[in-house]
């Protein structure tokens, strides 16, 4: 199964990940992206990949865990 990681130094809180993949990403009170599932349930993999892909500053990664 896959896991998603957030580079917190790069994350600027634009929230496109949350908009695209609300079941996977949430911005916390500090405006940093938080991943809601570890690892990603297979049914949500597609959504997770879309959310990772949309990050405008490439702060997200998805890989086999």
């Amino acid at each position, binding site marked *: 199964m896959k896991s998603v990681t957030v580079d917190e130094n*790069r994350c*600027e*809180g*634009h*929230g*496109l990940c949350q*908009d*695209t993949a609300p079941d996977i990403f949430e911005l916390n009170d*500090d*405006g*940093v992206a938080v991943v809601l599932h570890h690892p990603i349930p297979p049914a949500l993999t597609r959504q997770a990949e879309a959310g990772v*892909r*949309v990050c*405008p*500053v*490439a702060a997200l990664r998805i890989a086999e865990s």
Partner: protein
Amino acid sequence: MPTIPRYPDDIWTDEVLLDPHPHYRALRDLGPVVWLDAQQMYAVPRYTEARAVLGDAGTFCSGQGVGLNDMVNGIGAGTTLMSDGQLHAHLRSVIGPGLTPRALRSMRGTVEQLAAERVARLIQQGSFDAVADLARALPLTVVPDLVGWPAGGREHLLEWAGAAFDLLGPMNARAQRAGPKVQEMLEFAARTAADGSLLPGGLGAAILEAARHGELQPAQVPPLIVDYIAPSLDTTISAIGSAIWLLATHPDQWAALKADPALIPNAFNEAVRLESPIRAFSRVTASDTQLEGYDIPAGARVIVLYASANRDEREFGRPDDFDVSRTNASAQLGFGYGTHGCAGQGLARLEGQAVLQALVDQVEAIEPGRPVRALNNLINAWASVPVTVHPTRHAAAAGA
């Protein structure tokens, strides 16, 4: 090894700047990498390669400049825009944090109120210019205060920014004419850095603070001030003007937005996709590399055509359609992508969405007049978007 296809037409003539999309489509059809004869540079016109180039900052560098001529790339040395690696990360850590959506959260209410007040006033007029009277309003009110420009330095910001983007293009007549204005801008940045006249508490003052704490060399301060002047006005004004024109000329999309205002963020992304305020920037290869089987030598300048990538039929179905519900609108590259992704996009979205929200709240219908294109080497924008608005009953009553 395939030969890289060549494109003979100059896509930076006045004629093409007014209607570039047929040329962009021809370039995309030609190949994933093309050679522009007129500029003597490579270009990537398709979405996939544009995104790949932007995402590989180690191979496709910004440190030798991202403009399309050597002169401007020399001037821009030391800006966040035109730096790589650790230096870039350091500079971005100075200018970036103040612009994140989180940092701007406290401003949200103010910006939304400004937008609401401006729209309310324009409703009284009925007919106005969506560029001069609305798109410019928020950036010109919000940005100079946010950065902390001294009161005596604000009247030239717009023309300096336009000149900077002309100079960032190929060294054609338009770029040459922009030289003196860019020189004024640089002198302003140097003067402001030296006399510390940036208003306290603003983003500009934070740069001076960083220098005072030894996080920056004194010589690094003026280019960072330029990082704030050049991109923060024309681009956002272009996006907002374009969004209003698109809504005015697509009544079905306006209706969809009125019916579901939660689509506003997507609609703004879709407007940036279609009208890409920045047509292109460039990168220089750090090593011999390959794109889709085509060899690109080290030291080659590669133009990333955002405006073409954003209409690539390989990525976006019906690419020329304005569709506020488009599911992959947020994949658009108008704010760039990767480590150099626009640091100000949070502010741009805040301003753009506030204007659209105010229009959705107070306006029933928007009738377009005849718009006029602005002519700039790198900025795609309307100079004028005449509109007539009809208020909602609620807004009309409130204004009475």
